[in-house]
């Protein structure tokens, strides 16, 4: 089994805000991340797949094809967008990095070919903050 990672990036606006709570409670829990008019990040997305190298190609999966899948099913939906407002798979969810990583897994996983398993999503919100999700 070999693990292969493709790195992509996107820029997006968001805010952390729970509509079931008062403004005061949102400010207390999320601080400046709850700013009404949004803020934003340069997200760095690491997609890791795993599988056995194909005997004919030597590849687990063509990384160019992986890149196109990530672009089509994830980047197109989130890049230069407002995660709270514009992204269908984040509707009704808190736009934390944790939930975004889970959302990205669900968007991408069904499109991988048989024999290629999605191993993990590593998502950097800033150079100093990242989350990992392994589908568990």
């Amino acid at each position, binding site marked *: 089994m070999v693990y292969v990672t493709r790195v992509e*990036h996107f*820029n*997006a*606006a*968001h805010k952390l805000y729970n509509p079931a709570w008062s403004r005061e409670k949102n400010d207390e829990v999320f601080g*400046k*991340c709850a*700013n009404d*008019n*949004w*803020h*934003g*990040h*340069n997200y760095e997305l690491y997609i890791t797949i795993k599988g056995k190298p194909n005997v004919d190609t030597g590849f687990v999966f063509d990384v160019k094809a992986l890149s196109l899948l990530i672009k089509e099913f994830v980047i197109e939906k989130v*890049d*230069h*967008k*407002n995660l709270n*407002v*514009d992204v269908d798979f984040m509707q009704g969810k808190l736009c934390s990095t944790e939930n975004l990583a889970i959302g990205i897994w669900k968007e991408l996983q069904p499109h991988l070919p048989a024999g290629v398993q999605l191993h993990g999503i590593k998502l950097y919100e*800033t*150079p100093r903050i990242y989350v990992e999700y392994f589908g568990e």
Partner: protein
Amino acid sequence: MSNKVAVYRKEHFNAAHRLYNSQWSDEQNAAVFGKCSLPNYHGHNYEVEVRVTGEIDEATGFVMDMKKLSDLLQEKVLVKFDHKNLNLDTEEFRSLNPTAENIVIVIYNLLRPHIETSLDLFIRLYETPRNFVEYPVFIK
């Protein structure tokens, strides 16, 4: 040889923005600024590098106290821009398009009055890890 040294301080802020010229139609904005003009904003992790150049002060051994430089950046720049929407939340970009070029000049002008005139100031601003701008520019 002169005793001039350049000292640097790096800080960062996260902000939303969109590129939009209010004099233009939505179509023209879309044609010029592309997805950067999308109406619901997007955002960046901005990294700002401030360089102060000058003679070393003999009494302190400093060109400029880095803690003071850091505090200045915090008070004059980061408080205004961090976790904000540059178009909506800041007076500086109410009528100025918040491109990286315009942001770097605004940051320079916010800091310049608070740094001794004998010291040179230079700003580098990263909008993404791959896009950055510098001000002022010295053509040799």
